């Protein structure tokens, strides 16, 4: 049976179809990807959850600040606490930090420019649901598309992230001022990952690199594993 991956849609999300399409590349026998409206209160039956990019709730107040109060977020928190794979991409990463499911915050890019470009990132750990099938040191070329992607946290948190091997991806040439070149981090157990680059937009050789497929492959493997956990 295909593993079921839910892609959450907030009012203002705009990358949900890209994620569903990219996950569709794994074929219907492996993956069934579908949209989950933000008003949903249960995530029962899903083997992984993706919070996609966009401008949830218009990014009013701060990116992610209002999305945190969407009904689905309580279910996402429970799902994450239960070990379920959760990946937040770009705005989804911002939502996860605002919700307290990931540490730190994403502030405005150094230089105050909206960045829409392709960057190099290196994989720093394979203990996460997004990098389990990758290798440490793997170099990926991925698109970024953000104004608030400058990761920051206090010194103690950074020390902890390093000591606990929770820095998932680093930029090879820091585009936005992120602390320690951080492009993605994870929670203690590695089942919640947030990243600013868009792996779902790096899955088609005609328009980009296909380096995003390796990350999504890891997510599909983690979701499949989850699907076989006896309930």
């Amino acid at each position: 049976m295909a593993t079921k991956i839910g892609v959450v849609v907030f009012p203002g999300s705009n990358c949900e179809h890209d994620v569903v399409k990219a996950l569709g590349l794994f074929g219907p026998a492996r993956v069934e990807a579908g949209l989950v409206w933000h008003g949903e209160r249960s995530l029962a039956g899903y083997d992984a959850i993706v919070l996609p990019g966009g401008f949830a709730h218009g990014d009013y107040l701060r990116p992610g600040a209002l999305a945190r109060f969407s009904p689905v977020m309580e279910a996402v928190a429970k799902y994450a606490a239960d070990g379920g794979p959760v990946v937040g991409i770009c705005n989804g990463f911002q939502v996860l930090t605002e919700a307290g499911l990931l540490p730190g915050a994403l502030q405005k890019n150094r230089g105050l420019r909206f960045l829409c470009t392709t960057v190099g990132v290196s994989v720093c750990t394979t203990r996460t649901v997004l990098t389990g099938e990758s290798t440490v040191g793997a170099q990926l070329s991925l698109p970024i598309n953000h104004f608030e992607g400058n990761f920051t946290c206090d010194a103690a948190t950074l020390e902890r992230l390093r000591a606990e091997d929770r820095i998932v991806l680093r930029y090879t040439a820091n585009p936005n001022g992120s602390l320690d070149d951080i492009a993605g981090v994870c929670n203690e157990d590695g089942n919640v990952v947030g990243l600013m680059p868009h792996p779902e937009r790096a899955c088609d050789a005609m328009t980009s690199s296909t380096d995003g497929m390796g990350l999504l492959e890891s997510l599909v493997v983690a979701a499949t594993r989850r699907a076989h956990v006896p309930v």
Partner: protein
Amino acid sequence: MKYEVLVEVRLRPGIADPQGATIERALPALGFEGVDDVSVGKAFRLSIEASDEPAARDRAVEMADRLLANPVIEVSTVTVLDGAR
């Protein structure tokens, strides 16, 4: 009673404030010399129903801590602007 409350949110000291820095650099170009410590943030004007002024302040502080500011990168100050109306 209703209390007019001002909540100001700005970046924590030590967090880079590129907007503030840019404005600070721009001011001398207009002849405004001797200005430093420019910081950019947000201001919220609220009209809060509360039994007395300390209660209005307490509610605003809680709102600031839980929603209006992100404590990871921001600090807030609460000012009750005038007495009850």
